[in-house]
């Protein structure tokens, strides 16, 4: 192969989800249940993924536990020697269901929380009683000795809870927490005015993370996704386009990243028609921004071009209208000041109502 084999597969098993988080990374046009891949097709995809070099699969959604065949899928992944990571809201899973997934060979649970206290958490998630259910599941995950990661998506309406999130995760027995500042795609982009923190809040938050890492070293691993509207350099989105990860949508579309469908000229293949290897090697969408040849200035002559790979194509598309432009999150982008202005204005907007994530949204 002339470029590296992928290492991770994000499997969006379904877009069904009882929660309605306004920062959801799913596309605005959600796949319906009738269009979801069946069990046998998913199994084939995971077998092809393993043969292709993928080591870890992230079972996500929507809410992956909404699928009745999840344990069967996990058992199949285990058989293929794939490491399985369940990315869940936790509200559909009881003790018996968790035990089934455990017995099938599940390796790790990543459980989302919307805030540290029920009222605001349930308001953000748009699901009454959700927070209590999540706390109960977290205790069950730890009790059967599965490693637990707490995932906290951070935005203006819960940014004050950053420290309390870490305290809660430690108390729950999680060994890892993701403090993931909202990335503005899909529903989050639609709700940007309700979610964007101020520049000062973002700076304080990054500073606080350093303090917390020192305080909790050896107790819990704190991983962070930084608020990129205020960053100096862009994130190396998905580790570089078509370099490390593959995303499969509930309907079987194979995407270089979960937001790739927002780029109009890309053509996506479907696992129903082609093998994963064929798609990885030959898909127009994967080859469009692979490597560095597609880059324009300031990326093309930049010494960081193989560090951050031009940042995020979808963000360039959304904010500059041209996917080949540098990610405007980069301070070298001609659009960077515009992006910061958008962030500043969004942050100062009086909290509008959420546009909750819904099929009829």
């Amino acid at each position, binding site marked *: 192969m002339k470029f590296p084999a992928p*290492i991770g597969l994000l499997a969006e098993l379904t877009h069904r989800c009882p929660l309605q988080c306004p920062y959801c990374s799913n596309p605005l046009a959600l796949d319906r249940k009738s269009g979801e891949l069946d069990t046998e097709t998913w199994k084939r995809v995971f077998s092809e993924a393993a043969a292709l*070099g993928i*080591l*870890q699969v992230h079972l996500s959604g929507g809410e992956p536990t909404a699928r009745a065949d999840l344990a069967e899928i996990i058992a199949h992944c285990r058989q293929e*020697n794939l*490491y399985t990571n369940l990315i869940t809201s936790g509200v559909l899973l009881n003790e018996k269901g968790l035990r089934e997934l455990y017995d099938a060979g599940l*390796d790790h649970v990543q459980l989302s929380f919307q805030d540290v206290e029920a009222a605001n958490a349930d308001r953000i998630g748009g699901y009454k009683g959700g927070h209590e259910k999540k706390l109960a599941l977290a205790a069950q995950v730890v009790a059967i*000795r*599965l490693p637990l*990661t707490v995932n906290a998506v951070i935005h203006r309406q819960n940014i004050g809870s950053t420290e309390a999130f870490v305290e809660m995760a430690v108390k729950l027995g999680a060994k890892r927490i993701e403090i993931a500042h909202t990335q503005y795609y899909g529903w989050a982009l639609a709700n940007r005015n309700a979610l964007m923190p101020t520049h000062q809040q973002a700076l304080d938050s990054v500073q606080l993370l350093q303090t917390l890492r020192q305080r909790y070293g050896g107790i819990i691993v704190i991983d962070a996704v930084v608020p990129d509207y205020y960053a100096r350099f862009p994130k190396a989105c998905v580790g570089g386009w078509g370099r490390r990860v593959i995303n499969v949508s509930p309907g079987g579309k194979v995407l270089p990243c979960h937001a790739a469908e927002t780029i109009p000229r890309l053509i996506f293949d479907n696992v129903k028609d082609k093998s994963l290897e064929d798609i990885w090697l030959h898909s127009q969408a994967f080859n469009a921004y692979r490597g560095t040849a597609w880059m324009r200035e300031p990326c093309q002559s930049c010494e960081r071009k193989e560090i951050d790979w031009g940042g995020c194509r979808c963000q360039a598309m959304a904010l500059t209208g041209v996917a080949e432009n540098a990610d405007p999150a980069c301070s070298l982008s001609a659009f960077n000041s515009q992006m910061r202005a958008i962030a500043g204005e969004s942050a100062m907007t009086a909290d509008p109502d959420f546009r909750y994530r819904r099929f009829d949204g």
Partner: protein
Amino acid sequence: MIADTDIPRIPRGVRLSQDPVRNRWVLLAPERILELDEIAQAVLILCDGARDVRGISAELAKTYRAETSEIMADVKEMLGDLAAKHFIVL
């Protein structure tokens, strides 16, 4: 500090795995993949939840024809590093 009688094991959620496509061994953990060299792989295969650090070192000493005490210092350093990152438990 790791003792001679500590019994290291790989916990649930971490997996010692072959990566045939890249012709190597890896430790798979939550959002982490650790590439192993030949020595690390040899040590981790012996972390079976039965052998203690001394037993592991003695086994390696046979394979590599070295003194157990010499090997044990290296083994302890490596296991200490892996334990700090939650890749193994003692």
